């Protein structure tokens, strides 16, 4: 094992208080997935009953992985690659690099989504959607996603994110999340209260909370709940690990992890109330509303970027609600984007880069490699499919490294030492047995499902095939396996030098 020695880059900064750490971690976890993905997945998978498996997976996937990430980052004081070396030994650097790459690859197209959110906020604020029906909004979205306008907003999102990360933890990340996260919750609460008071808004609540327990017999509902929980909380992305590098020594990891998980799911529920309430209150009939909330649309953005703007047009007070909704979406996207940039920057700093150089390098790379997603929706969809699946592999890698280090050792020495609530043996069982098991089941199901829906599943050039996942993910894994020794040496050399 190669424990950290002196490292001037990681020694300097800590979150100024536990509240600031929690705000930042919540900002990371609550993203666009809570607002646009959660309602759609819930609607497509049994409505209210979906909340049952969604809640279970919070405890047997997301919270345990968040605890592992908090433990690794705060102990090793290194980014993902350095932490994997510290906990899993020198031969696991490639796993850490894969985790980091997956999240950075998501940053490439997530910056594009953040740009769209900014654009929608601006347009709805100046009344640009007024008088437009769904077809007209849909056309304007198509124009946005295939034009240089999308690139401009992607650049704006990335540049702002990079400036914040360049300012560091206390003056950048903390200051921004101090405003974004509480504002996001306040906006969602205002939105929820407004839509409940709309005539017909309660029908949306009925859809959201009416459990059809027979749907729980469908294994798809369980698997979708697992993937939603993994994506939504950010467990296994390496982002919690990155923020926990800046954790003060005496922090309560268990309580922090629970707050992250519960806060994330609470935000999802609020977003669900806002979206279902709006759609059911403003649609001509409950059947139309029900089919609308299940519609994926282009890149699964149909409901958010095509239907909601036109629905807000017909809503009393929609002039205020529309901009507020897109402001919440922008805040959610932005607080997640900055954590993704910090992950890349932290890893580069572990290789000896200064923060300034790392930010510039990452910003340029993210902009250039995000261009295809900004200009072609098909490419965007492909990347979302490939690296979204990669995240499940990332979660699995975290459990492998934890098993290698000793899950019980993590529990006794890292989790239960500085805590007000202690964790029992269940943690060891979940991380060493249940998470690997869930990974195997989920990956097998996905592969089987994608073979059945696409006759060209063997073609790596098709956007939603297994072949494209294996080709891209496999290529990245091979490259990092090949570079394993070099990465270890580079991190060790920098530690020795500093």
């Amino acid at each position, binding site marked *: 094992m190669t424990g950290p020695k002196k490292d001037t880059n990681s020694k300097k900064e800590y979150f100024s208080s*536990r*509240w600031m750490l*929690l705000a930042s971690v919540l900002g990371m976890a609550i993203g666009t997935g809570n607002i646009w993905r959660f309602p759609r997945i819930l609607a497509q998978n049994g409505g*209210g009953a979906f*909340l049952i498996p969604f*809640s279970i997976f919070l405890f047997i996937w997301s919270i345990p992985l968040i605890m592992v990430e908090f433990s690794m980052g705060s102990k090793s004081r290194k980014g993902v690659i350095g932490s994997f070396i510290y906990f899993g030994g020198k031969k696991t650097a490639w796993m850490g690099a894969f985790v980091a790459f997956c999240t950075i690859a998501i940053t490439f197209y997530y910056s594009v989504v953040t740009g769209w959110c900014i654009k929608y906020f601006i347009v709805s604020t100046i009344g640009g959607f007024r008088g437009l029906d769904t077809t007209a909004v849909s056309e304007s979205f198509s124009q946005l996603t295939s034009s240089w306008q999308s690139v401009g907003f992607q650049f704006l999102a990335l540049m702002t994110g990079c400036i914040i990360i360049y300012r560091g933890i206390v003056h950048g990340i903390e200051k921004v999340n101090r405003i974004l996260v509480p504002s996001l919750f306040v906006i969602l609460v205002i939105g929820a209260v407004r839509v409940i008071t709309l005539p017909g808004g*309660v*029908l949306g*609540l*009925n859809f*959201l*909370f*009416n*459990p059809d327990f027979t749907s729980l017999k469908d294994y798809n509902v369980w698997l979708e709940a697992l993937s939603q929980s993994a994506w939504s909380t950010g467990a296994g992305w390496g982002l919690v690990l990155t923020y926990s590098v800046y954790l003060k020594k*005496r922090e*309560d990891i268990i*309580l922090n992890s*629970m*707050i992250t998980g*519960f*806060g994330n*799911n*609470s935000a999802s*529920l609020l977003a669900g109330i806002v979206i279902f309430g709006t759609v059911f209150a403003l649609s001509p009939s409950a059947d139309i509303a029900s089919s609308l909330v299940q519609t994926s649309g282009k890149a699964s953005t149909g409901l958010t970027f095509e239907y909601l703007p036109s629905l807000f047009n017909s809503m009393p007070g929609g002039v205020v609600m529309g901009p507020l909704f897109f402001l919440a979406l922008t805040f959610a996207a932005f607080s997640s984007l900055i954590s993704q940039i910090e992950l890349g920057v932290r890893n580069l700093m572990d290789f000896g880069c200064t923060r300034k150089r790392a930010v510039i390098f990452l910003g340029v790379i993210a902009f250039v490699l995000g261009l295809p997603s900004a200009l072609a929706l098909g490419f965007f969809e492909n990347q979302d499919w490939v690296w979204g699946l990669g995240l499940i592999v990332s979660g699995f890698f975290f459990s492998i490294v934890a098993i290698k280090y000793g899950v019980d050792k993590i529990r006794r020495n890292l989790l239960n030492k500085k805590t*007000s609530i202690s964790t029992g043996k269940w943690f060891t069982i979940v991380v060493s047995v249940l998470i690997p098991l869930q990974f195997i089941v989920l990956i097998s199901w996905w592969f089987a499902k994608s073979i059945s829906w696409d006759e060209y599943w063997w073609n790596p050039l098709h956007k939603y095939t297994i072949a494209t996942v294996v080709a891209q993910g496999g290529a990245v894994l091979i490259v990092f396996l090949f570079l394993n020794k070099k990465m270890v040496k580079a991190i060790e050399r920098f530690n020795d030098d500093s």
Partner: protein
Amino acid sequence: MTVKAIIFMIIMLGIFWGGFICLIALTAKFERNKKSRKNVDD
């Protein structure tokens, strides 16, 4: 809204929002204790 939906809504909001608020309150309590211990030590 059906009675079943109302009960389910109370349970779900209770678990997540109730849990979230309780955890935040617990954290605030621990932080207050930590601060007062530190003041006594000083």
